[in-house]
């Protein structure tokens, strides 16, 4: 029984409750920073506990998926955390895929809280409490080893985000918040139906049990509906092409920290859900219904997202909206790699989730810093900022290049791998690869177009009236803002020059998620697989 993983959820939840009760805004923000840093330390502690070189070659393939889960917390049958009535269990655990996403989340949260110190001026206590609650729920999605718990956390992320967009967002925040909530919830209600059906049919909500059940015992029509239900929830969250319309609005209207978390983590929940549920259940893959039509259809949606997102981004006037549309494009790559269903593509896809979180998160942070100074994000009103803000310009160009995929920075590796995956995939092939590669070129065009307009050229900034009662920010980035960006920059460089630890560690898990287990199981397992894995670890 590992309690570090319980601590990972408990720290931000307790932090949120305590933070909401603190007497003043100043203490609330430092408290939030403290809590998020503490959560990050718990995350690092987990990474230190994690056995990165787990050798599963001696384990029969049917058990590998379950055994790859480490740092497990599995309540016993008599524990109040285990509800026999509906076979729910508060069981947690991570494999290397989840752990990398956890690490990315705990890195993004402190920096976005630190970045909000001057951006959020009203109702600060509430803001920081919601941020901490959001942190707990996001981590809950990544560490859940129970399908119902996964869904509950998945759904719970909506409420904090709704308030964060709706209260502290831009001028159209109410509309954006409502649209965000409605779109995501509409999709996930059907996921809920599927989750309950699977739990009921498999006799347990345990993820490994449900997965094995879904592989073998579903009828074809049940498979179809399960796939549709899961796809409905995840596709909206990713978002894939026809249901992406909530995203640009929500990203643009959200406050900086909200955009960072939204782009950095919440979008990953959809891709992670596909990877964690749909693929291992065999719904996307050779064993799936209507293979390879379904996979090809998903890939086509991804390609449309890549190209369409890039083209729309190109013509945006608002730089934040431009980055928001770039997310539509980038997530297309991410899911494309996933549905390539080979080592390159899926490793690339996992890496892409982490990389996109870092670079796009950083882009939103920098844009937020520009906005705090000039109160505009209009590409026509800003020009030549390099002359006035050299440090900011350095970071802006740096993260832009990372986002475009400059070799040596993180984006390159994952973009390359996802496209390589599409090229070498048995069922996608060269056409998909070429189409995606066009997306990369377009990505370079719109990003560099923006950089050229905003950073370089003759200096042009709007005249800003100083707000009363607030100390004006320094002209270039101040120490706090540099502190916000440096950790992300370091991570970007590290993952750019040394991606192998990530790639190697996720190789086994991505193989396991797409390999069907060899033997069907009969009934719920006596001991939770996660527990078995833990006992047998050296």
């Amino acid at each position, binding site marked *: 029984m590992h309690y570090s993983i319980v601590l990972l959820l408990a720290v931000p939840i307790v932090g949120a409750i305590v933070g909401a009760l603190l007497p003043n805004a100043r203490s609330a923000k430092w408290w939030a920073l403290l809590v998020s840093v503490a959560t990050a330390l718990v995350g690092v502690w987990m990474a230190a506990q994690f056995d990165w070189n787990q050798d599963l070659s001696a384990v029969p393939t049917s058990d590998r998926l379950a055994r790859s889960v480490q740092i497990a917390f599995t309540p016993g*049958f008599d524990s*109040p955390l285990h*509800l*026999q*009535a*509906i076979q729910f269990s508060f069981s947690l655990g991570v494999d290397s895929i989840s752990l990398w996403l956890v690490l990315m989340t705990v890195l993004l949260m402190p920096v976005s809280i630190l970045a909000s110190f001057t951006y959020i001026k009203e*109702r600060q206590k509430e803001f920081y409490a919601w941020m901490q609650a959001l942190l707990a729920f996001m981590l809950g999605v990544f560490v859940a080893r129970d399908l*119902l718990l996964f869904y*509950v956390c998945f*759904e*719970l992320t*909506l*409420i904090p985000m*709704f*308030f964060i967009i*709706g*209260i502290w967002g831009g001028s159209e*925040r*109410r509309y954006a*918040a*409502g649209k965000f*909530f*409605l779109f995501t*919830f*509409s999709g996930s*209600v*059907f996921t*809920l*139906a599927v989750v*309950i*059906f699977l739990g*009921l049919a498999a*006799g347990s909500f345990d993820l490994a049990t449900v997965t094995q059940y879904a592989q073998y015992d579903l009828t074809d029509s049940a498979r179809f509906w399960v796939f549709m239900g899961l796809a409905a929830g995840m596709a909206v969250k990713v978002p894939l092409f026809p249901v992406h319309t909530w995203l640009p609005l929500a990203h643009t209207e959200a406050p900086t920290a909200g955009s960072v978390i939204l782009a950095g983590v919440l979008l990953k929940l959809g891709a992670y859900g596909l990877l964690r549920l749909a693929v291992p259940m065999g719904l996307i893959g050779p064993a799936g219904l209507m293979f390879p039509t379904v996979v090809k259809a998903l890939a086509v949606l991804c390609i449309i997202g890549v190209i369409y997102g890039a083209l729309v981004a190109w013509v945006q006037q608002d730089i934040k909206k431009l980055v928001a549309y770039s997310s539509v494009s980038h997530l297309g790559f991410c899911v494309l790699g996933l549905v390539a269903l080979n080592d390159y593509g899926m490793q690339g896809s996992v890496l892409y989730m982490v990389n996109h979180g870092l670079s796009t998160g950083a882009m939103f942070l920098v844009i937020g810093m520009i906005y705090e100074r000039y109160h505009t994000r209009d590409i026509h009103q800003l020009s030549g900022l390099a002359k006035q803000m050299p440090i900011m310009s350095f970071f802006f160009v740096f993260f832009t290049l990372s986002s475009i995929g400059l070799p040596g920075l993180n984006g390159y590796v994952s973009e390359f791998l996802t496209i390589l995956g599409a090229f070498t995939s048995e069922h996608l092939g060269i056409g998909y690869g070429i189409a995606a590669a066009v997306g990369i070129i377009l990505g370079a065009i719109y990003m560099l177009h923006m950089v050229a307009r905003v950073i370089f050229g003759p200096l042009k900034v709007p005249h800003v009236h100083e707000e009363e009662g607030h100390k004006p920010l320094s002209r270039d980035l101040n120490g706090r803002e540099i502190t916000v960006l440096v950790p992300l920059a370091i991570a970007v460089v590290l993952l750019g020059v040394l991606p192998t630890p990530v790639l190697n560690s996720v190789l086994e898990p991505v193989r396991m998620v797409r390999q069907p287990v060899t033997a069907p199981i009969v*009934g*719920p397992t*006596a001991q939770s697989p996660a527990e078995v894995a833990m006992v047998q670890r050296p």
Partner: protein
Amino acid sequence: MNTLPVAIGLPYVPDWGQLRAFAPELWLIAAIVAVLLTPFFVKKPNAACGWVALVGLLAALVSVFVVGVDGTGEHFRGLMVADPVSVFWKGLLLMFVIGIVLMWFSTTAPTMHQGDGPEFFTLLLGATLGMSLMASTSNLLMLVIAVELASLPSYVLAGFRKTHLAGAEASLKYILFGAATSSIMVYGLSMLYGLYGTLQIDGPGGLAQQIATSGGSALLWMAIFSLIVGLGFKISAVPFHFWCPDVFEGASIEVSAFLSVASKGAGLVLLMRVMMSFASAQAYESTPLLNHLAVLLGVLGAITATVGNTAAFVQRNIKRLLAYSSIAHAGYMLCIVSLLVRGPAVKADLDLASTAAQVVLFYLAVYLFMNLGAFTVAGLIERETGTERIADYAGMGRRSPLMAFCLSACLFSLVGLPPFAGFVAKVNVFWALMQNGSWWWWLVGVIGVNTVLSLYYYVRVIKVMYLDDSSSAPIWPHPLGAGVAVVCAAILVFMLIAFGPINRLAGHYSHFYGVDQTTFTAEFSSSQPPP
């Protein structure tokens, strides 16, 4: 066979054991008498009557716990039954009415005309008595009396704000609808008596058994329809729901809250009992009668939920919005009741009927607190600001953070979002429908779509409270009412955490007397680990 003369013709003295099973009702009657006597001793009787009613209700609630399921059986020569379901419902009802009285103290009490208190509480307790009797009868005559005892005081309560024009209109509308539907119901029930010569629904030689052996007829269907009309009015199932929004809007807020839960709940429990008797007499065989009944109830539920949710879209008044929301929730529960009348269709080892009863009871328990909390907050805000318009809730997150939080919790719970008990209630509904599969999948779809629809209008209220700003002054709600609202919100979270035990409790209490119900199979409710 001919029980009518027997039941009323011979001298009959019930013994202590029989009376004991109905101690809660006796306490209620005692409380009614005490309330009527109060004005003779107190000069300003309103608040005093409130306290007397509260004490009576508490005594009744305690007696529910003390007596428990001991008195299970038929009493008063078959006129009444006591069984776990009725005990569970009485417990819920009394808890709820206590909440209503507390709500009255914090909302309407100061403005009520001095001297009206005794009447108000007599009517409230009388309706409560009727609603608890509704849950414990399987005799047609008693059924009619109970329904009327619940209805007649409700009509008056709806129009109790005498100077209020909308109240008078509401009351008139309510009474016209009520009179029409209950006369149809009585007409149908008289047909049943004419057909089978007995007033007893279950038991040997009862209606249910005779129907099972003799099969259906056109006249029987007419009788069943008219029964559904009568109970559909109480449940506010579409198309008998038209009174609901107007009455909720016109009546004072604690009466609206009272009707939203108590009236519907009592109707549902009674409907469940009747349907359960039918199903049990047919031995849960999949007979045409039961199949048709199941489809009828399922379709009724689906339509009710959809109409409720779509009509709530355009509401600008919080009470009307909650009225339509309560119609929608009645629809969800009707969908589950449709499971009752068909037996273990798909999984032979599972007692679906019990499961369905359990799900409805759990849903009612959750629904009670969601609605009580929401109405309490609406009442407190109305008292402080004099408005029921949703648009006037702007900035409530700042003006009264506690109230806004409690209302949000209740509304999120009504949508069915975690971390509130509405989520598990809805999971339960999905779970039970899926267990049966076949055409119930359509109901799963309908409820799914409806949940999305409902999200829109519930969240709109939350949006107004938190996202719209207003310069209006902060408000300080009455502490008692605020306490009720906070307790409701806390219970909703608690019921999610303690879902397992509470669900098991509902399971233990989901048994009807005289109905051949096996206990739960290990698959659904046992606490033993799988082998």
